[in-house]
């Protein structure tokens, strides 16, 4: 697994896992998976498997961290020791601390933080299996968990990455493409307000390439957003349909 493949894009223009350049990995979303949490979500984005749990708004502990005019949003991104090939130390690494901050800052604009002063919202993100693009998948899952918990939000947040692999702009990089490829641009979007809440770039891109990468990532975001909405709906619609079926059955 660790040896570099010779070609990231084959003669037909297909990628390592057989995707077209502008194709997403299969995404599966599920809402309300942790019964102890106020809100939760699970995402499978390609080989990524990530759990997100949300608690709050609740009392701030320790108390001196409370702010008089807004909610404190705390975010913890953590990778399980078994989530990658080589065992990862369970202690939060420099990268995880940074990602926690980046994810928090991309979610905060969507939350009405000024509604509940002197409280705290906790977001826990646990990466069970990683395969490139975990920050984007984490944002997608955490936004769903927030919506599920009943915290008022301006909009959902969706994230997706695009990048450059062998001089081609491609959507949704997987682990090998991220490591061997030349650039990665993760983008988080509030789709209804059309506002970008996260924009990073790793590697080198020309201005034109950067622009097309961002546009491609935004397209990907919109595709995932449809799935996000669907996931929130299914949680409630499934109950409704079940009951209606029972009702019909009873009437017969």
């Amino acid at each position: 697994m660790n040896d570099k493949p010779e070609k990231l894009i084959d003669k037909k223009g297909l990628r390592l896992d057989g995707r077209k350049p502008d194709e997403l990995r299969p995404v599966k979303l599920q809402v309300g998976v942790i019964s102890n949490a106020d809100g939760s979500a699970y995402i499978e984005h390609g080989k990524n498997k990530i759990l997100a749990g949300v608690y709050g708004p609740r009392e701030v502990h320790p108390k001196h961290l409370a702010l008089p005019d807004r909610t404190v949003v705390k975010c913890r991104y953590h990778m399980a020791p078994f989530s990658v090939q080589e065992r990862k130390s369970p202690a939060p690494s420099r990268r995880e601390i940074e990602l926690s901050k980046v994810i928090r800052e991309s979610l905060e604009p969507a939350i009405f933080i000024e509604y509940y002063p002197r409280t705290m919202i906790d977001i826990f993100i646990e990466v069970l299996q990683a395969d490139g693009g975990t920050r984007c998948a984490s944002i997608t899952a955490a936004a769903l968990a927030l919506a599920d918990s009943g915290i008022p939000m301006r909009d959902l947040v969706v994230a997706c990455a695009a990048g450059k692999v062998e001089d081609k702009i491609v959507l949704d990089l997987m682990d090998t493409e991220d490591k061997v490829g030349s650039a990665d641009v993760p983008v988080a979007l509030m789709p209804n307000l059309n506002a970008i809440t996260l924009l990073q770039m790793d590697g080198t891109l020309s201005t034109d390439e950067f622009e097309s990468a961002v546009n491609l990532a935004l397209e990907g975001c919109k595709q995932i957003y449809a799935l996000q909405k669907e996931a929130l709906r299914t949680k409630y619609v499934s109950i409704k349909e079940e009951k209606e079926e029972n009702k019909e059955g009873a009437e017969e």
Partner: protein
Amino acid sequence: MPIFLEKRQLVTPGDLIAEGDYIAGENTYMENNKIYASRVGIVEYETKKMDVVALKSFYVPRVEDIVIGTITEVGFSGWTVDINSPYPALLRASDVLSRPFRPQKDDLPPVLDVGDLVVAKIVSYDRTHDPQLTVAEPGLGKITRGQILKVTPTKIPRVIGRKGSMISTIKQETGCNIILGVNGVVLITGKTLEDEQLAMMAILKIEEESHTTGLTDRITKMLKEAKTGKEEKKDE
């Protein structure tokens, strides 16, 4: 000035509900003259005011609300009460004793101890101060018997029903006395445990199916069936 969604449609945060001369009601917000949903819920409107009935929410204190809380801490001159909200509530000793509190003579734990449940009313609350409770009114005070049930606070109006139709049905059919805390905690006191359990079952069913139609009829049917089943058993 279009409305983009029909009544009773499910929305997720950020969904555009209406544009133009409308009023943003519950669980919605307005930006650039457009009204968006801010919670997962069902759209409701009459003429101008757009509301979203949230499917899940938490309790935010409001003055005059009747709530049911658990004592979490006994302080020097009062108690801290968990009222199922982001803010802890305070209950003053002088309020419970209905006379001035004398720190040297009065001992608080025998009156109310950690874990005790109280029915109380919120007397004051704002963004800068934690809610304060009172029990100095008829019907309020320590709970001594009955069953406690927690539901999502937004579902309490559904448990009450239109003009109290749902709650009076349950009370009638089960013969239980039910106190609904606005914070989503429900107290059921009945003659027998079976009656209480039946009422609990009904309320849990309402919580689960609150977004469906024709619920009152189904609950009535369920309660009637359970009742006849019980009587048949007795006859045997």
